[in-house]
């Protein structure tokens, strides 16, 4: 399907939205576009259902374009949640909607695995990290319950075509530096509202794996972006048969360019309580860690578990520190069991949780007590995010997380922790 449209000089976001609306559109224009997939999660779906059935007095337009994922509190933590999830299942059965139930995994990972977010698609999700779909160059964007209900009921959504910020990645990452560090650095440099309303287009990402692309796009929203697009290339382009029009255009106009020399990057931390408060992890070495959390839509994939296993192999996590591992999906869990990764992690003393969001938003499965410090591979470190408002969450790569679990203090992956560190009096 080669377009008759003139897409010359357009950004990826403009190209995708032009194709969706069937005419050439550019940054600033308001468009109403057909959506290819509407995703809703268990915490939002009940409201969406009420809005569709009661407020709009409608039914979903294209059931095959709807995915409901029970992942945010999964399995249910209390009767309220259990009752809500029961209602979701009953509604889905009645309306013939697809449900990915308890244990299948985190919405974004599941949609990617199921091929329900593909290059060039417009995917609207009831979760802000729907930017993750940009890892396969789908225009994935998060919206609230009302917008999701409207998209489900009408099959369409309205958007302003975003301006685009180009992030230019150059150089080789040093050992121990992961794409999570790159993604955090991008947020730190752009700041939490530096990409508001914008698309982020990542250049120089050709060598990245699918998992790495998803991590990068996942964090785009932490700079305020509407969408974060990684141009399809290599294995990803082949696997998804990315359309040829979905490519970087050297004539495209960018509102801004951020250039990062990866060779100069060291492991990062997003320090409480803002995701754009990005600092070198080296500045926090020795800080006591009560809990390490490896998982989430940012870093709960097989590659992330591999990184942790390589660091933890044949060793035990520190006395007094607990490490939760929550694979992003049932497929990730099955693969980690099959290739021995899970045995290595369990022998090191980790605690395994049901694939899903886990304690990321402080609802269950490992919430924090006052005064506790968590090193988490997730994407938000706001006050009270993972439990007590007096707890502190440091966002890190899987490597820093695993190294910190070994040391019981914040540690760099290359440099196993040394227990007590001078000045580690943060109790």
């Amino acid at each position, binding site marked *: 399907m080669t377009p008759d449209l003139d897409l010359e000089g357009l950004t990826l976001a403009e190209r995708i939205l032009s194709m969706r609306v069937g005419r050439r559109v550019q940054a600033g224009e308001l468009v109403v576009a057909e959506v290819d997939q509407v995703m809703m999660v268990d915490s939002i779906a009940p409201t969406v259902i009420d809005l569709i059935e009661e407020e709009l007095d409608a039914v979903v337009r294209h059931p095959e374009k709807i995915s409901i994922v029970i992942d945010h509190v999964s399995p249910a933590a209390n009767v309220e949640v259990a009752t809500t999830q029961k209602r979701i299942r009953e509604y889905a059965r009645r309306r013939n909607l697809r449900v990915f139930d308890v244990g299948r995994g985190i919405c974004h990972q599941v949609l990617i695995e199921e091929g329900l977010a593909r290059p060039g698609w417009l995917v609207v999700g009831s979760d802000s990290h729907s930017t993750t779909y940009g890892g396969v160059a789908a225009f994935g964007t998060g919206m*609230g319950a009302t*917008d999701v209900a*409207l998209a489900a009921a009408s099959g369409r959504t309205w958007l302003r075509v975003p301006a685009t910020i180009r992030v230019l990645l150059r150089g080789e990452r040093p050992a121990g530096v992961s794409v999570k560090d790159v993604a955090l650095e991008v947020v730190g440099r752009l700041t939490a509202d530096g990409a508001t309303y914008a698309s982020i287009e990542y250049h120089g990402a050709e060598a990245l794996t699918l998992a790495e692309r998803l991590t990068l796009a996942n964090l785009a929203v932490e700079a305020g972006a509407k969408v974060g697009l990684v141009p399809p290339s290599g294995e990803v382009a082949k696997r998804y048969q990315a359309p040829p029009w979905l490519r970087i255009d050297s004539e495209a106009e960018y509102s801004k360019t951020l250039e990062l020399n990866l060779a100069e990057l060291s492991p990062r931390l997003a320090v409480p309580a803002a995701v754009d408060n990005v600092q070198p992890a080296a500045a926090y070495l020795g800080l006591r860690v009560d809990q390490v959390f490896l998982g989430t839509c940012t870093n709960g994939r097989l590659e992330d578990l591999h990184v942790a296993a390589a660091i933890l192999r044949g060793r035990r996590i520190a006395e007094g520190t607990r490490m939760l591992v929550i694979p992003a999906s049932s497929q990730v869990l099955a693969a980690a069991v099959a290739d021995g990764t899970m045995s290595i992690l369990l022998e090191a003393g980790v605690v395994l949780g049901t694939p899903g969001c886990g304690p990321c938003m402080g609802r269950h499965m490992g919430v924090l007590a006052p005064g506790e410090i968590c090193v988490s591979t997730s994407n938000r470190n706001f006050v009270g995010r993972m439990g007590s408002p007096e707890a502190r969450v440091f966002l890190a790569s899987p490597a820093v997380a695993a190294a910190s679990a070994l040391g019981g203090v914040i540690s760099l992956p290359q440099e196993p922790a040394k227990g007590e560190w001078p000045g580690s009096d943060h109790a």
Partner: protein
Amino acid sequence: MPEPSRVWRFGDGVNTDDILPGKYAPFMVGEEAFPRYAFAHLRPEFAAAVTPGDILVGGRNWGLGSSREYAPMALKKLGVAAIIAKSFARIHFRNLLNIGLPAFEASDLPDLLHDGDLVRFELDAGRLQRGDQVFQLPTPPDFLAEVLREGSVLRYFKIHGRLPGERE
């Protein structure tokens, strides 16, 4: 003249976990209870003290973070009449307009308003008055003004059979 409203002044970067912590989502604590946890961590006194008609004033990037619509919904249920901030996060701004909670982006105004100020707010006139001082609020773009006039985007869709910005 409308009744005077209290101004609740907040700083920069108020996020959706501040507005309503995830653990107090309606599906965790029930549809009736969740509004009483608004600002439970940031300003624990807020939910009990806020009065219908009150105005929230924030700094930059109000509402960053989660797409949870129940965060602004909690404020609406508590009777908050409008939110004025230097800037808003994208998803949250849509949510506010979608549920019909007026949001005004004004770069200078927030610094002129103080916590506890008593003001008169007139939505239709887009005006805020404190004593003798009158502040004009920015007018939203036409397509958003249409949505606000109908009360919510869902009502808009029901009445017009199309989305905002969609051609008739």
